[in-house]
């Protein structure tokens, strides 16, 4: 009986589902799988990959593994794919490039020549270990690298040598910048929301408009506006020097100060609006009631209004923080080299060095961070009136 309406509903939302599937779920799944998949070797050397998984890593692998490798190399027709394999193996164990080149050429001439005779390096276990290490179609190497870890030669997880990777430092910097921006938004946004909720009529419309206007303006435009204001010959520096307050221009841009300032401006609405909407549900005469009961305005604020606005404060802080850690344009345009956040590293891997797997792995780390915060936000915003 209820099937017909259900079907109708399904048909109605089908375009949306298809859209979400094609443009959101599928790319997301692809990116995630990119972060953990490493098919280069298992695709080009399938026989070797399956044979070497049976080898225990002690001594040299058996004749069947060597035969499999020879067969795979003989069967391969894709020079590009083989180049990929060689690059990968060379990254694990240097010397592979010349070894593989030599072996490929030798096998073309005499397919049955034993590997050890082609090059004596095939008698070295380290080369075979490198193949085994890369044989699996899945890898955690990218995820580990994105938090500055790697697998040692014995397979255990260990920290990368100091100075070889800055991902961890950048993630920490991202979180720190996000926290700074959240704090600034809170310091400005909480009083602002309280004032907005306490006035009426055109004053409230004006205050709300002042918050919403930036939200309706393009992020790029707002960031560019800050560049004009903050640069060495910008309005602020000219005004300061014109007033004689400083002799030389202050460094306002291309540093952390500029990034936090501009991001605070951009993200302020996400702090003000949740607090404001919570405050609207607080009866207007609670402060009056507190005063009539003998509470000084400061104590009334601390005991009544502040606890009641806490739910909005937490929502606002999480919203701002979640948005802030994903910021790319503002730090890129206003920050200096040491102010870049995780998004710009992702952009570098994706467009700069075409290392899609590293980009995907870092993206996955950012996604997980955001999802954890979102779960927290959901939990906290679902329990009204249980605080304080």
């Amino acid at each position, binding site marked *: 009986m209820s099937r017909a309406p259900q079907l109708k509903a399904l048909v109605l939302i089908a375009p949306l589902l298809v859209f979400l599937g094609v443009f959101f779920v599928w790319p997301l799944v692809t990116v995630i799988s990119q972060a953990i998949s490493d098919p280069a070797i298992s695709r080009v050397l399938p026989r070797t990959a399956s044979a070497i998984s049976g080898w225990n890593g002690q001594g040299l692998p058996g004749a069947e593994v060597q035969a499999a490798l020879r067969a795979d190399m003989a069967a391969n027709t894709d020079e590009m794919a083989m180049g990929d394999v060689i690059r990968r193996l060379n990254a694990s164990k240097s010397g592979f490039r010349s070894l593989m080149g030599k072996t490929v050429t030798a096998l073309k001439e005499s397919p049955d020549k034993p590997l050890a005779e082609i090059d004596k390096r095939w008698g070295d276990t380290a080369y075979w270990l490198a193949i085994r290490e890369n044989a699996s179609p899945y890898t955690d190497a990218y995820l580990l690298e994105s938090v500055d870890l790697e697998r040692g030669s014995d397979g255990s997880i260990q920290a990368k040598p100091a100075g070889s990777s800055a991902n961890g430092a950048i993630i920490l910097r991202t979180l720190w910048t996000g926290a700074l921006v959240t704090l600034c938004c809170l310091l400005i946004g909480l009083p602002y929301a309280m004032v907005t909720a306490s006035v009426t009529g055109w004053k409230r419309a004006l205050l709300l408009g002042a918050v919403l206007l930036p939200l309706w303006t393009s992020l790029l435009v707002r960031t560019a506006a800050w560049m004009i204001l903050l640069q060495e010959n910008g309005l602020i520096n000219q005004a300061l020097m014109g007033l004689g307050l400083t002799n030389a221009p202050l460094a306002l841009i291309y540093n952390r100060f500029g990034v936090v300032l501009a991001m605070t401006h951009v993200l302020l609405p996400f702090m003000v609006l949740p607090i404001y909407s919570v405050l609207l549900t607080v009866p207007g005469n609670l402060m009056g009631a507190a005063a009539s009961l003998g509470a000084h305005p400061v104590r009334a604020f601390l005991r009544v209004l502040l606890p*009641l606005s806490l739910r909005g404060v937490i929502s606002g802080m999480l919203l701002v923080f979640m948005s802030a850690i994903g910021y790319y344009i503002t730090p890129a345009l206003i920050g200096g080299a040491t102010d870049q956040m995780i998004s710009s590293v992702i952009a570098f891997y994706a467009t700069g060095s075409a290392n899609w797997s590293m980009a995907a792995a870092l993206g996955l780390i950012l996604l997980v961070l955001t999802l954890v915060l979102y779960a927290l936000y959901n939990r906290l915003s679902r329990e009204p009136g249980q605080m304080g």
Partner: protein
Amino acid sequence: MTDSFMRFDKVTKDYGSVRVVEDLDLTIARGEFVSLLGPSGSGKTTLLMMLAGFESVTAGAITLDGQRLNDVPTYKRDMGVVFQNYALFPHMTIARNVAFPLEMRGTPKSEIATRVKRALDMVQLGHLSDRMPGQLSGGQQQRVALARSLVFEPRVVLMDEPLGALDKQLREQMQLDIRELHHRLGLTIIFVTHDQDEALTMSDRIAVFNKGQIQQCASPRQVYDHPANRFVAEFIGETNLLAGKVSGVDGGRVALTLPDGSVLQADGAPGFSVGDDALLSLRPERIDLHGPADALTGLNTLRGDVADTIYQGDHLRIVIVTAAGRIIARVPRKAAEWPNGSQVVLSFRPTDGWVIAP
């Protein structure tokens, strides 16, 4: 009133160019229950807000116990305020709500516990002290608000339509509860309401407000039986107003000649002289109905025809058309009924009418 515990002297309040309270004088004695009654916008709530300190006084002075209150901030006025929407703190338990004014005054912890318990027991809510306000019914919340406003033994308790949000039965119960608390604790209560029954039930005196001024401030009996003017007569209870000219004054007794020539005798305010235009206020329940043949002496009488009879359960409302206009009479169910169109004679004693200026 010789005891002027609380005084309003020429108190005026302007909102921009709008004058909401004008040159208002009022004196209230310690332990008195005074209702401020009037239609919305009459200035009664504004007066209460000025008393509580939520609104500033534009001109004039408010004094309490000899202390000028105008510039004293709310939190130092030591007045309990009960709001229509209860204004309980939603993030605190009932006990914490009631403890709040004591904590603000630095009362010792051990004493707070006993006083909170006593206050909550007083409104029969001692068993709910650990609940949150949202878990209580409207009536319970208002009783908590009452306990919270009384627990610190304020000099005055202000109530701003505290029963307005409750249903009829609960309201009547609360009226009696508050009245009882007033008598038992000797509280001074200023009670704002637009419900005349509430004011009549609870007050020692009623101040009837209209257009920012007090029209009359007197006991419920006085206000109802001897309204000062037409506004009070019409606002409190139901009344019939018959227009005429004063044709004689004898002490407190006024003779009023109606346009059709009939003369009615009734009590009236002093100050009338022969020839003045005047109104006779005649309460529907003070009218008796008789058949045209009944012999009547010493009473005012008017002849008329029954136009309609409305059954109201405990009484009948009878609409009668007379030469002086339509008159509503309210008669008990036990009385004889008259079919529409039948001739009747209305009678009332001179002491049951009241002559006022038009």
